[in-house]
């Protein structure tokens, strides 16, 4: 840390800064809906949405209340691991805490059967080949631990 900043500076260089790093460890409680959502991804490679009891919207990731009409959402629905690319952005800048190789493509995907978009990564495609509206399919990680990256990325369906 300190060595990083002062490395290369001769011993007679003035001291003007001290480098450090705060590491903030956290636990994010999944709750009932995220627990089942991630267990299904981990154990069965299944993407589960949840249907609103009033307006019928299928929500993803699942949540206890509908974001459209605020009624309880309680009916689990299995979704395809395929969908349509709604929009995307190509990330060229490194972000602290992100170890992905640059550039990477961050995408909003409408999975078949869902009424909301799902944010994830695109892979097996170059940035200049991406087209809004293209069909994509999830590529599952071999080792899954119940987290969003149990899906490695979505690849184009050709």
């Amino acid at each position, binding site marked *: *840390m*300190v*060595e990083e*900043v*002062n490395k290369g500076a001769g*011993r*007679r260089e*003035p*001291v*003007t*800064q*001290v*480098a*450090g*790093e*705060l*590491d*903030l*460890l*956290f*636990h*994010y*409680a*999944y709750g009932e809906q*995220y*627990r089942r959502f*991630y*267990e299904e991804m*981990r154990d069965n490679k299944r993407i589960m949405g949840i249907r609103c009891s009033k307006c019928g919207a299928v929500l993803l990731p699942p949540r206890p209340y509908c974001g459209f009409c605020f009624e309880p959402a309680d009916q689990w629905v299995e979704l395809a691991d395929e969908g349509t690319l709604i929009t995307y952005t190509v990330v060229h800048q490194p972000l*602290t*805490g992100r170890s992905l190789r640059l550039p990477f493509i961050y995408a909003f995907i409408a999975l078949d059967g869902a009424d909301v978009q799902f944010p994830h990564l695109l892979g097996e495609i170059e940035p200049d080949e991406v087209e809004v509206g293209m069909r994509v399919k999830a590529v599952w990680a071999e080792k899954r*631990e*119940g*987290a969003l*990256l149990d899906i490695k990325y979505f690849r184009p369906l050709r």
Partner: protein
Amino acid sequence: MHSGQSEESELTYLEGEIKCPYSWSTGEIAGAFLESLRDRGTILGAVCGGCGTVAVPPQSYCEACGASMKDWSEVGPTGVVMSWARVTDHFQGAPAEAPFRFVLVRLAGADTSMLHLAPDDERIKIGAKVVPEFREERTGSITDIKWFVPES
């Protein structure tokens, strides 16, 4: 990122970490203090232009009377332990491996106490005489002093 699992293999939480790298600008006063640690292995105090208080670590303005600091004064290396606390368990961001002790050291010639570390040695107690142990490789940081050890 990892996920927490109970015995039934139920997912109950996501474990993550946010890293926040930073650079702290020392300013003129702390910069000179750290340079003297690095280049000469000496500890500098700042002398108040109003009341003569010697502050270690140094500050631009005197905490006792508010006047500007006017001069440097080398202090120590011997100091006296004013207070201490024993750390027995590791905590995130701990500055040393447990067990160790935090100490407030009043260096010879100083009027204020400096927070630093000491080994978990029963001789480290209030009133004990201690001396700094400097690192061989110094970078211009307060950790250029590894810790304070009992004066032999």
